[in-house]
């Protein structure tokens, strides 16, 4: 049984939607998805929503979701972690044969959070990590340092990623942080935690997205050819983690590629809360042959390169909407396939800023 994407909707990324609450943001995204799919909300059988209670400051955020996306009196479930995981859960629910059309939704409203780094502290082990009060960007810097050391890449490669993505975002009306910058601009931005400069870090953004999945071929516009998800090799003890490496990518991506029966894709959309996340994910993907930073330097990941990566602008160019980043990638992939005539893509999204776990999805424009 094949599963298709019938339609997508989003509210553009913004630093803050001060005048809208999350319900109003989601309603807007859902309306667009229904319009895009050309179906009525009554034809939806259920809702799979992605939410993180700590980020939203509301317990059981999924019970706040269904009304504004057309899910009244219907099946509803919340999937934790990144929204690409929710997308895969929607895919699996459809494959059970119990549903025909499902809506996958997510939103992020980090502008509601006054002390984001301290909120994130609560995801760390309370006995051995939390009392040290590490900022998440410092943990990301540990990852970046380890990645650079292991791969032989230079800090300037991180700047090349930032420049590429911000430039790509210039063509994306949903992007909040597009810009024409140079590697020197990024190098000269404020040091955050060496080797990370401010320009290597995706800025948080408010965002909401809705994707309608279906098993009805007549409604399908893109096919979900393969899915994969893997937990990394680490435990909750950060010291035992494999730093500088996204161990989950190879396992999740290979699973998705095997399901799809392909070895190559036309482009990649990868959530990159930090510039090095993109390179670490591409290393794990390994469909390139070369070390990721060498392909990057040669322009292979540019819009006109042999494997465009984040043609949407990624999170560096669009803004990082926390757990909504995965569905943000799905919506951008669908938009890119429609606009550029590309036929296959790989979508990768980690379960958080510095989390070695995540999801992979292969989409094609063939139905």
């Amino acid at each position, binding site marked *: 049984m094949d599963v298709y994407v019938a339609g997508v909707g989003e509210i553009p990324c913004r630093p803050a939607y001060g005048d809208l609450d*999350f319900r109003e943001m989601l309603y807007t995204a859902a309306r667009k998805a229904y319009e895009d799919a050309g179906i009525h909300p009554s034809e939806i059988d259920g809702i799979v929503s992605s939410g993180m209670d700590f980020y939203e400051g509301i317990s059981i955020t999924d019970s706040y979701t269904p009304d*504004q996306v057309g899910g009244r009196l219907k099946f509803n479930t919340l999937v934790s972690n990144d929204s690409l995981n929710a997308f895969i859960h929607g895919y699996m629910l459809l494959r059970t044969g119990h549903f025909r059309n499902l809506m996958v939704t997510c939103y992020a409203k980090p502008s509601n*959070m*006054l002390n984001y780094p301290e909120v994130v502290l609560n995801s760390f082990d*309370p006995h051995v990590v939390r009392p040290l009060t590490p900022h998440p960007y410092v943990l990301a810097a540990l990852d970046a340092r380890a990645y650079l050391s292991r791969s032989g890449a230079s800090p300037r490669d991180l700047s090349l990623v930032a420049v590429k993505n911000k430039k790509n975002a210039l063509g994306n009306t949903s992007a909040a942080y597009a810009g024409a910058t140079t590697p020197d601009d990024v190098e000269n931005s404020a040091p955050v935690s060496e080797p990370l400069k401010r320009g290597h870090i995706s800025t948080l953004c408010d965002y909401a997205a809705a994707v309608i999945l279906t098993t009805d071929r007549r409604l399908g516009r893109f096919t979900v050819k393969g899915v994969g998800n893997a937990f990394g090799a680490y435990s909750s003890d950060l010291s035992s983690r494999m730093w500088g490496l996204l161990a989950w990518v190879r396992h999740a991506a290979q699973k998705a590629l095997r399901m799809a029966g392909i070895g190559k894709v036309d482009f990649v959309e990868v959530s990159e809360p930090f510039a090095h996340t993109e390179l670490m994910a591409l290393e794990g993907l390994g469909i390139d042959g070369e070390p990721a930073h060498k392909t990057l330097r040669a322009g292979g990941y540019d819009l006109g390169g042999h494997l465009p990566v984040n043609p949407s602008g990624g999170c560096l160019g669009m803004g990082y909407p926390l757990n909504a980043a995965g569905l943000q990638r799905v919506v951008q992939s669908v938009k890119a396939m429609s606009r550029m005539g590309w036929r296959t893509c790989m979508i990768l999204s980690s379960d958080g800023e510095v989390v070695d776990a995540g999801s992979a999805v292969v989409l094609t424009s063939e139905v």
Partner: protein
Amino acid sequence: MRVKPARYSERYLAQQPEDVRRAIIGLELDKEFGRVEGWASSLNRKYTDTDEWRAENLILTYWRIACRYSHAAGKAATRFLDGLRDGKILGTKCGRCQRVMIPPRLFCEWCFRDVDEWVEHSGEGAISTYSLSYIGTDPGVRLEKPIIVAVIWFDNTSKKSPSSQTVLHAAGLLHIVDGVKPENVSIGMRVRPVWRRDGERTGSILDIAYFTPVDGGVG
């Protein structure tokens, strides 16, 4: 009981802006609030019937969650709260199903469409359900005088099923009822809002001090 006190380090406090540091210290988050003497009586109280919860079976690392949020109210709730500040109860109305929504939304989830207009309501209505509460949100707290918590459905806003006359929707609020003896409260009792005075209202649900019987109640 094995307790591992944890607290915000001096180094961390030093990083905070002055006002945040003051707030943390004001909440005593810098203290070793995990000390057994300070918490023993609360922790050793039997909260539930499950003995595993008893404090002597736990290893505790105390961590007070200091998440700070500033929830954007959105277009609908902002106008509603501004209305309360002005002493008005505002709602929205869907032109298709004719429902009045209080608290308001910009969309009707029945018809999945935008609402059509804003309406004002006096806030008079009837108690649809209520409870006399003797408990506080901290476990073990008992109140001498019960709080009357009620859901008030506003006049002429209910939509009923044609056959069973079950109310499918009504505009209204969950709020506090006062100015009446607890034993005299009943379902269907007609109530009206009692507002805080001009100048004291801030744009909060608490601008309505409480609901009270329309007929003046019985003390």
